[in-house]
């Protein structure tokens, strides 16, 4: 109870309804994932108090921010939150520095835990302080907006698709900062996104919304590997593994990422041995065989046990979950292949992983 964040609400509008009851840990990044119109942003606005559903409960650890049954509603400016808007929402009449201190100077000194210098350094905006907001690029704006939200030392950081309005190059510019935030700050984050890539990189806990309802929810690794209510990532279905870099092979520029139950060789990005690394394996990059393959280009072969099968979006395909030790993998193969290999839960198989992406 004291280490959880909780929201329960019912909101019915003419063309939209939202009905959720969620509780998640107060550490790490909770990703709210779903297509546009699924209610992710509305849920975030309710957490912030910008939206007030007639029936709603919001609790941050022990503190009740909203409980309509008991007549409690804490307005947004009294909630210890930071909010990053999709369009940055910087104040155009202030320069960057003034934007950054707008919130900071309204926070009592005793509650300031994130020094402004730290926020500026984390987001790499030291050179922009005197600039007018209108002269900033989209990526710069968003970084300033994130630093501005951090500067109020929030107990909960809410981010509404902070990268959605940016092109691919600007996204690549900001993602490393977000990953750094994720690693270096302990505050819990709720991150709204419709991008599987951002979710795979940043999330620890995943909530999938569709048409105002929660369709899947849980720790990222297990939620992505669920087949019953498949997370609709389409071509980007796959799993995320928390690994530790265990060895390097300098001659071939490879490094070994170890996880409970096995290891994978991936391209060496210069990561130190012993550092944690998050890798992502798409279902379409995993194939299955009943015997170990020897004369093949695929270096990453793992032995596992089938633990579930399910249909995929296209009737020709099926998704197969294979456990390697305690670590779930998902493979997308054709249904004909599944029938040919006579795959059933409990059957031992060899996984061949064609591609592994190091994402953190």
């Amino acid at each position, binding site marked *: 109870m004291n280490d959880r964040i909780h929201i329960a609400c019912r909101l019915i509008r003419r063309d939209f309804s939202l009905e959720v009851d969620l509780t998640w840990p107060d550490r790490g990044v909770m990703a709210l994932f779903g297509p546009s119109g699924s209610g992710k942003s509305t849920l975030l606005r309710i957490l*912030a*108090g*910008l939206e007030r559903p007639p029936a709603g409960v919001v609790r941050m650890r022990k503190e009740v921010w909203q409980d309509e049954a008991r007549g409690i509603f804490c*307005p*947004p*400016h*009294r909630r210890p*939150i*930071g*909010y990053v*808007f999709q*369009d940055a*929402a*910087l*104040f*155009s*009449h202030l320069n960057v520095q003034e934007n950054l201190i*707008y*919130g900071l100077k*309204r*926070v009592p000194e005793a509650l300031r835990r994130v020094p402004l210098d730290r926020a500026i350094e984390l987001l790499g905006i030291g050179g922009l302080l005197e600039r007018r907001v*209108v002269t900033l690029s989209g990526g710069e704006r968003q970084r300033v907006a994130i630093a*501005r*939200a951090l500067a*109020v030392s929030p107990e909960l950081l*809410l981010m509404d698709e902070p990268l959605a309005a940016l092109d691919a190059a600007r996204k690549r510019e900001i993602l490393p900062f977000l990953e750094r935030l994720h690693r270096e700050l302990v505050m819990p984050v709720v991150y709204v996104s419709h991008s599987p890539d951002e979710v795979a990189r940043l999330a620890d806990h995943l909530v999938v919304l569709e048409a105002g309802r929660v369709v899947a929810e849980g720790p990222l690794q297990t939620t992505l590997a669920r087949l019953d209510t498949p997370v609709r990532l389409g071509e980007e279905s796959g799993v995320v593994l928390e690994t530790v870099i265990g060895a390097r092979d300098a001659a071939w520029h490879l490094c070994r990422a170890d996880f409970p139950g096995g290891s994978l060789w991936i391209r060496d990005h210069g990561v130190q041995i012993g550092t944690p690394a998050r890798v992502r394996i798409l279902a379409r990059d995993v194939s299955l065989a009943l015997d170990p393959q020897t004369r093949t280009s695929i270096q990453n072969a793992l032995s596992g046990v089938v633990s579930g099968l399910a249909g995929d979006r296209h009737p020709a395909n099926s998704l197969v979950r294979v456990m390697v030790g305690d670590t779930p993998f998902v493979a997308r193969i054709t249904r004909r292949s599944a029938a040919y290999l006579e795959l059933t839960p409990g059957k031992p198989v060899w996984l061949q992983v064609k591609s592994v992406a190091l994402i953190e």
Partner: protein
Amino acid sequence: MLDFSDWAALWLTAKLATVTTLVLLVLGTPLAWWLARTRSFWKGPVSALVAMPLILPPTVLGFYLLLFMGPEGWLGRLTHALGWGHLPFTFAGLVVASVIYSLPFVVQPIQNAFEAIGSGPLEAAATLRASPLDAFFTVAIPQAKPGFITAAVLGFAHTIGEFGVVLMIGGNIPNATQVVSVRIYAHVEALEYTQAHGLAGGLVLFSFLVLLVMHWAQKRRDGA
């Protein structure tokens, strides 16, 4: 060319326009804020009332104000009961009338500016610990500054051009209600065209300058 009374009329006009503009900025800002933000049923009727002076002949406005502020009107009784006497044919009466007469010219630009800000910056302010009142003064008003400048210039200029209302409730009392427009009328009545030219030409120049300055201010803002 201008005699002492002409200068007195000019001074009175400037004083009236200044006081009226200041009163309007103070009263018009909350009204404009409410109109820009409300979803109430009353928005329509109140907007219509605010805009009425745009359409009504000034004489109609002046006539009813004369009745309201006179000894038999409710405003007149109120001011009398408060010991302020009656407003018609006084400078204070002119201020009250001008405030109503120029109301839309001040409220509408401010309201438009507030509406253009939208809810985004105010929500951002709220998530940065600013109370609604705090956000109003530190975000809404600074961001609506161009609207305030337009409102002040229009309110000032429109009050200077006031004639019908003044004639109805102010008459032609030197140093109290004899403003420039009334003075010009008096000159023309007396066939003193030279003096009329002096004042009238001055007003033409003034109006042109006001509009020119507004245009430049607009251009600078758009360019920024």
